């Protein structure tokens, strides 16, 4: 079995799993954990789309 993801699929999964762990280990209450996990996930998404557009315009 082999899976050949697009760059977006791979980076989306990476962002999802990483933000879950960061959310759990980074804060002390469940509410703070949820907010921090969503914040980290949002930052990953912003970086993914931001860098993608930057590369798009960079290539001309």
């Amino acid at each position: 079995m082999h899976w050949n993801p697009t760059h977006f699929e791979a980076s989306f999964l990476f962002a999802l799993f990483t933000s879950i762990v960061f959310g759990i280990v980074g804060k002390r209450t469940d509410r703070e954990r949820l907010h921090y996990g969503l914040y980290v996930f949002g930052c990953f998404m912003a970086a993914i789309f931001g860098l993608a557009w930057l590369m798009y315009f960079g290539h001309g």
Partner: protein
Amino acid sequence: MPQEKDAAGKPAKPPRPPLSLWITPVALGWLLPGGGHFYLKRWNRGALLLFAVSGMFVFGLLMRGRMFEPGDTDLFNIILNYGGFVGDLANGALYFLATWFGYSQPDMPGAAPDYGAKFLVCAGLLNILAMIDAYEIAVGNKS
């Protein structure tokens, strides 16, 4: 309460927590992602850690990422391979099961195997964070 100071006037270090307090949850956390949290009865957090770390590891396998092996000829590759090996090894039972079942992927060109290798190492690094969290809970620094 005033902070205790040592003979040199520096703040005294708090005593190191006894090994027996934290070794079991940390070892279980290494063997099974989230295992330390399960041992400490943090069921929801343990389940989420198990999902995240093993999910990343499984997707790394599906992308045919290579496992790093220690040793090489030049310094850069030695550091790279040892670092990657430590990351892979931090997956605990997932790593041992994959290798015992014969998973051995050569270094192949292409984006997917490259992502896969990073997923496998990052799953191990996330598991190290989970182990540190289990330690913090076990010694009473976190709830």
